[in-house]
């Protein structure tokens, strides 16, 4: 249990550093880094709260505190994947609308080049 929590502490710390470095280098926009930073911070706190895990495990019907930890990690990442799916869907919609608009503008431009007056 202790080894698992220590490993999680190290991984959470690395994740925090990695995300901050990515934001600094503008690889991730600040608004999209918030989810990762919150998730990493939550895992860091959880990894240093052995008592909390031991109290939560029986309440979740789990015999082993590490299972509670895995459950929390799973939930955090499922939520993050959902959030990013929403963002990607919106970006795709916007991207398609822009591509269609660009195509229509190019169509009008081509008609102008061909000498057909356009309003």
């Amino acid at each position: 249990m202790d080894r698992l929590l220590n490993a999680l502490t190290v991984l959470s710390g690395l994740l925090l550093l990695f995300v901050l470095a990515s934001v600094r280098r503008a690889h991730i926009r600040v608004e999209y880094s918030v989810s990762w930073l919150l998730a990493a911070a939550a895992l860091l706190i959880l990894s240093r709260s052995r008592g909390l895990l031991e109290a939560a495990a029986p309440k979740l019907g789990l015999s082993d505190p590490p299972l509670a930890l895995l459950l929390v990690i799973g939930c955090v990442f499922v939520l993050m994947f959902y959030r990013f799916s929403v963002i990607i869907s919106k970006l795709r919609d916007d991207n398609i609308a822009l591509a269609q608009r660009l195509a229509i503008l190019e169509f009008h431009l081509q008609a102008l080049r061909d000498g057909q007056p356009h309003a």
Partner: protein
Amino acid sequence: MPANPRTITPAPVPADSLLIIVPAYNEEAAVGGVVRAIHAAMPGTPVVVIDDCSIDATQAVAREAGAQVLPVPHHLGLGGCVQAGYKLAFELGYAYVIRVDGDGQHDARDIPRVFEALRTSGREMVIGSRFVGGNGASSGAVRGLGIRFFRMVLRPILGQTVHDPTSGFVGVNRNALQVFSKSFPLEYPEIEALVVLQRKRFRFLEIPCRMHPRTTGRSSITAVRSIYYIVHVLLGVFVNVLKFDQRGRHPAKPGKN
């Protein structure tokens, strides 16, 4: 120099104005013949080929055959491509749009009958169907099964039987054009589009049309992809049905499908 009568003008268009759109992706071998056949069947009617970022000479061949080209800057898939055509037609004020696929499977000689049905029936959509007195010869075994399956699924949703739900030979009037220019399924759009229309309480009509076997290129729906197709379309249909149920309280946002 007089303007080309086939060229689209942005000026107010007559009440019966028709635009023919031809979505095409890597169809250099077929699209020229399609455009010429349309011009022969409907002289003077503007034809726009919507090129879905083909890597072959589709655009050049289409222009050479006398069509105008709506060049999509990156590959959008059939739905995004067709919706671009609907948006263009709606903005230019066209009253009717008929979609003919760029692979040459639809017989352009049927376009006048689709147009006539659109003008006289008062229906928002007219579908050129292989299975209403047509030849029905071009649907393979897997596709035939899929068509029968979706016929069964759609019957209670639409309140009428649609014999050829996957037909891409479709005409729409301006009411449907307005809806589709804002909200249109992006992948495999034909079946979902029927449900989108149903949400608006629009009606459709099927008329018999001829269908030729594909002579060039390959269909995007292979045997393996047909499973994905069925799951995807089923999901899309049910999502649209759910939107329909909530229509009175929360109207669906445009452009979301």
